[in-house]
């Protein structure tokens, strides 16, 4: 148990609630790159990077890891986790282990489930003697790769059951509608540009009309750039997070970095083009609901963070005729927390309705 949890436990013990206030609601956004948690009795949203790095204990002594977050097993296995894993991997030009790929639990990292359980337990914090209800995010079935989401959903269900939490799964993009479309009576089209996937939900008056996902999002951009320029994908991710802007000229002096940012721009454009085409196709093929009202398109997710993303999206979508009327295209209030906040809202609303 981490020191943070222990401190939190002591503090919460001192102001232990009466039985009727014993319920805690959670929203848990389990993304390919980040896991994010909103909690009803905590006024802060916490996040951790969903990556880890297996290191040789003899090469890096534990006493050197004073400021680093890590997991240690009784068998002397050592995993650096979260942001520190990402930094270490970049420093040593190593590829990090990622428990998830394409928005789903990775078939290559089955051993990571234990590490993931520990990271989620730590992120959620103390829930001792509480009734805890949690909505966790799941992607929709992708339309462009042949993968099922059943295993993913069951693994996280099992992890939460293991921690002692009542749980239900909610589509990731639908959660954005819960958090961002209250003024439109929870109607809208939500796009979640995560690391592994782009998820789309069409919500109508709080009801999920249609959802789908594509396998192209942030990781796809990074991988394509890495292949084009013969680099390690996490180095590209690092540069993307530090320098990427989709508005105006590239103002970077370093020639190599400039080339990477330019390549990123081309793939951002390709990603948006691809997404818009898929939205139109899905609407034409699968959406039966007659929607007379104009609906907003709300964009969220870490991949939508670079400055100018919304303008680029508006610019590209204006070249297409959409099968529905758009009232506005806007970014979520906080693209990193919109999903977890939406999940929290849904959990509290469900508990309230019981």
């Amino acid at each position: 148990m981490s020191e943070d949890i222990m401190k939190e436990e002591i503090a919460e013990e001192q102001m232990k609630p009466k039985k009727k206030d014993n319920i805690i609601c959670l929203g848990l956004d389990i993304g390919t790159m980040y896991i994010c948690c909103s909690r009803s009795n905590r006024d802060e949203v916490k996040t951790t990077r969903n990556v880890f790095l297996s290191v040789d204990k003899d090469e890096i002594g534990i006493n050197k890891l004073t400021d680093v977050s890590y997991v240690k097993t009784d068998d002397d296995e050592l995993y650096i986790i979260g942001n520190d894993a990402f930094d270490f991997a970049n420093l040593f030009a190593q590829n990090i282990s990622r428990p998830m790929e394409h928005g789903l639990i990775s078939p290559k990292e089955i051993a990571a489930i234990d590490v993931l359980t520990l990271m989620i337990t730590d992120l959620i914090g103390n829930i001792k003697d509480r009734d805890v209800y949690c909505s966790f995010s799941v992607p929709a079935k992708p339309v462009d790769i042949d993968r099922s989401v059943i295993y993913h959903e069951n693994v996280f269900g099992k992890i939460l059951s293991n921690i002692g939490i009542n749980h239900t799964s909610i589509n990731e993009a639908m959660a954005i509608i819960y958090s961002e479309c209250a003024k439109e009576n929870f109607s809208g089209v939500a796009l979640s540009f995560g690391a592994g996937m782009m998820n789309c939900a069409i919500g109508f008056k709080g009801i999920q009309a249609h959802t789908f996902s594509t396998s192209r999002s942030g990781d796809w951009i990074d991988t394509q750039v890495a292949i084009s320029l013969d680099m390690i994908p996490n180095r590209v991710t690092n540069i993307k997070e530090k320098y990427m802007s989709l508005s105006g000229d590239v103002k970077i002096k370093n020639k190599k970095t400039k080339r990477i940012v330019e390549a990123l721009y081309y793939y951002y454009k390709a990603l948006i083009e691809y997404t818009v085409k898929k939205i139109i196709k899905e609407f034409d093929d699968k959406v039966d609901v007659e929607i007379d009202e104009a609906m907003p398109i709300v964009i969220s997710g870490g991949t939508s963070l670079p400055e100018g993303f919304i303008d680029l999206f508006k610019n590209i979508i204006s070249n297409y005729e959409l099968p529905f009327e758009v009232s506005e295209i806007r970014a979520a209030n906080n693209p990193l927390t919109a999903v977890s906040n939406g999940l929290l809202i849904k959990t509290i609303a469900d508990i309230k309705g019981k």
Partner: protein
Amino acid sequence: MKKLKLVIKEKGMYIRLPGMAAFRTPAKVDVTKIKMSTLTQVLHSHGVSNYELTSVSKTGEILNKWTKDDINLSNKKQKEEPTNINSDKLDRLETILLTLVSKKDSEKNKNSEQIINRLLRIESILKSGGQFTSHFDVNNKIPVVEEMEDQYIPDIDISDMQIKGKTSETIERLSKKDIDDTVDLLSNLTKNGGK
């Protein structure tokens, strides 16, 4: 209609069969629409050595069971006498032929003899275990995987693990009022059936 189900009990394998989404084992999968030779080849290439095929009736009754060894033997026999026929089509053909026999028995003895001979051949094929189908349906990409509950997810054991350091960071302060207001709107909308 009979169904052919593949049962793999061994845990922790990730299998991708043609025309289906990948799945994990242990699992029970409907493989009626997959060509037998393709199925055995794919299983071989995945290194699956321990599996069973069961023929299941419409009511769920197990009609027959084959292990990998039985299938290998049957494949050898098949080379001598090809019997790769769709069971559904066989059922329909059988019904049509029986009707014809009853109608035309008195009129054309020669024809009925031929028909009876065909029926006997079909019967012998069915008795030999009824081989299933030749093509998989490309449109049916969703596998009918009977989930064996949580068995296929490895057990979670974190009792021997310790986490150290600050693993998470705060990225936003929640506005309790905004959350409560949105919850009220959503609850009212749900209560009033979207009105």
